[in-house]
């Protein structure tokens, strides 16, 4: 596509957004303003509903997906323009979901055309909300030791077992699950990837209350839950390949949250603590800690850019996703520790000052979810540094 074509596209996007993005959807949002979609979704406003419908119609909830599956078939360059233009007018995302982030990419890569046809458009339109069923109580870092059993019952599969850390499973419609289909094979070789409708008696969920007081995750129990045979993705017993793909994908996303690390906390500290006559933050020790943290934050952001660009040039991010995930999440933890240090006593009150305490506690999970920091360090040591196993 020529520069001119892209410029035309930009104009078209600008015009369309100007006309179609409701004013209310251009306001700053917090977590309860997110539109997750799903069978039981209650729109928080007419504007939210209209905005989703209009974007769905354009295929812009999933702009790079093929038109056949509810997308707009945009090129990377076009999609970037769309993102930029939306950001320029501060348009809220019309729809967020694990379907868009996780299952969609997996189906596009490993699904059959029929499977894509069945599931992708519903994701694009926000009709079905998805959860992820990976970890189990005894399969955390060692995910491949999972035991959820999936048995062939002729015309369908029956699933029995327990998953944990299933995000918002209590509000989800369907779940993509890693299951064991062969108990006699080596642990990585008996795993399959399957889609399960949660609207059945065999599936129950229970929210997990976290130390932050919130419950974004659930335990999900399968008791002879039914899955249709055509909903097994890829080959049977080859689900680990898909799992690994999605883990790397997830890692990049979580590492990407490191974007937060550069929200300038020096400025926040100046507001909260004030400066002395010498123009320096009045807490000299905290000042040193914040300066070091900000420098690492700058360096990390520059690394995200550099590695993303290298990836675009070919070869992908590879095992460096582990490095980004490790460093970004540890940095974010440091950042929130310093936010707490800066906030002082108002930060120790639940719900006080941007709820910094909840944010702080939430970050402690960053270095656990999507593979712990220790797992990432193992991966770096083995795959990048080529150090031997014991």
């Amino acid at each position, binding site marked *: 596509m020529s520069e001119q074509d892209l410029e035309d596209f930009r104009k078209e996007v600008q015009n369309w957004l100007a006309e179609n993005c409701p004013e209310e959807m251009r306001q700053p949002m917090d977590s309860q303003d997110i539109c997750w979609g799903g069978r039981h979704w209650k729109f928080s406003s007419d504007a939210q509903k209209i905005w989703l419908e209009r974007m769905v119609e354009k295929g812009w909830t999933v702009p790079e997906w093929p038109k056949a599956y509810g997308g707009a078939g945009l090129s990377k360059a076009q999609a970037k323009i769309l993102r930029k233009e939306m950001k320029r007018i501060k348009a809220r995302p019309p729809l967020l979901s694990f379907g868009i982030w996780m299952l969609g990419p997996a189906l596009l890569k490993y699904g059959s055309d029929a499977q894509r046809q069945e599931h992708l458009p519903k994701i694009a339109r926000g009709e079905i909300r998805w959860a992820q069923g990976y970890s189990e109580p005894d399969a955390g870092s060692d995910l491949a030791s999972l035991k959820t059993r999936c048995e062939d019952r002729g015309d369908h599969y029956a699933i029995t077992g327990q998953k944990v850390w299933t995000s918002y499973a209590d509000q989800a419609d369907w779940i993509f699950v890693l299951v064991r289909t062969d108990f006699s094979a080596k642990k990585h070789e008996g795993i399959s990837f399957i889609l399960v409708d949660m609207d059945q008696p065999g599936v129950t969920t229970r929210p*997990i209350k976290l130390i932050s007081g919130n419950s974004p995750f659930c335990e999900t129990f399968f008791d002879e839950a039914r899955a249709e045979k055509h909903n097994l993705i890829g080959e049977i017993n080859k689900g680990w390949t898909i799992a690994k793909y999605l883990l790397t994908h997830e890692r990049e996303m979580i590492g990407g949250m490191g974007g937060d690390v550069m929200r300038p906390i020096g400025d926040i500290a100046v507001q909260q603590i004030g400066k002395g006559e010498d123009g320096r933050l009045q807490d000299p020790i905290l000042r040193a800690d914040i300066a070091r943290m900000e420098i690492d934050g700058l360096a990390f952001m520059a690394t995200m850019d550099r590695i993303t660009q290298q990836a675009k040039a070919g070869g992908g991010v590879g095992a460096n996703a582990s490095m980004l995930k490790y460093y970004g999440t540890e940095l974010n933890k440091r950042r929130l520790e310093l936010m*707490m*240090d800066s906030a002082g006593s108002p930060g120790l009150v639940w719900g006080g000052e941007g709820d910094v305490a909840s944010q702080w506690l939430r970050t402690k999970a960053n270095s656990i979810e999507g593979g712990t920091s220790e797992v990432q360090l193992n991966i770096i040591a083995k795959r990048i540094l080529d150090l031997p196993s014991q």
Partner: protein
Amino acid sequence: MTSKEEMEMLRASASGFLGEKAPISQLRRLRDDKIAEGFDRETWTEMGAMGWAGVLVEEAHGGVAMGHGAAGILMEEMGRTLTASPFLSSAIMGAVALSKYGNASQQEGWLPAIARAQKIIALAVDEQRHHNPAHVKLQAVRAGNGFKLSGEKCFVADCAAADGFIVSARTRGEEQDPDGITLFLVSRDTQGISVENQNMIDSRNAGKVVFDDVALEGDAVLGAVDKGLAPLNIILDAGRAGLAAEMSGAAQECLDRTLSYLKERKQFGQTIGSFQALQHRAAHLYSEIEIGKSIVARALQMMDSAPEMAALMVSAAKAKLGQVALLAAQESIQMHGGIGMTDEFDIGFFIKRVRVADALYGSQQFHTNRYAELRGF
């Protein structure tokens, strides 16, 4: 002074009592039941009966006068069980304030009741988001024989249950002037005092106290008019040393619970405690905690032997234990993995308490800076 053997007996009895009567499940219940006072009255009464509340009160006033070393042992054990009580506010800081600076009628009126856990004293000192005892705006204006107090204090621990407040007020000079600060002992039921509880992350009680034209007699002054900052710092140092001791107990408990988990949890077909990277981190944490315990012991010794000279050691201890206890709490969550993030599991209570204990009466940054200032650099 108390002998080594008595100290060890005290530790054993404290550990037994707290483990049985006031384990973490008590704190969880206080939280879930939204008990405004943030502690269990019955447990506190029993602590009084055992003499704990009088650990720093002279025998003449009904205490057991075992000293800061003993108070530190109790704080350390309470740190292990995260037992909530007004021990720090009343039995440490309240007792030190009244014993050292109270006049005869203040001592008679309060010390025996403090020692028996019948009355509770809370310290109202902070006015800003960060601890800074020299920053006092709350005004005490002379009125007749006495004073009128107007202003606000924040982050007042145990304000909900307090029967009396020790308040720092400005009787002269500007906001940051070290001179012109006066301490007052004020009964809770004095006209014009209102208390606003806050929902703290450690599930204990703290909040704001507003003084609205509170009229006091002249004998409400604690110590000398205008000369309150030095006494206040000694009262605070007693509390800071106690908090350091509490954090050392909390850190040790985090390590112990983590070690148990490391010995039991299996991943990749192995006990995770056999992974060398985790072993080294646990061994480093062990070393830090041991180092931390020693400086706490020194600070407590100094509080017993020469409290006027204890500031350097107390700040070193408070800064070090803030760092160590946060490290311990963070490492314990990380090594527990996902389960460490759940509210159902007790480990998360530690990081929340440690954060509050670190901030209370000066964060590690505050005390690192104070240490450097006292050292002259």
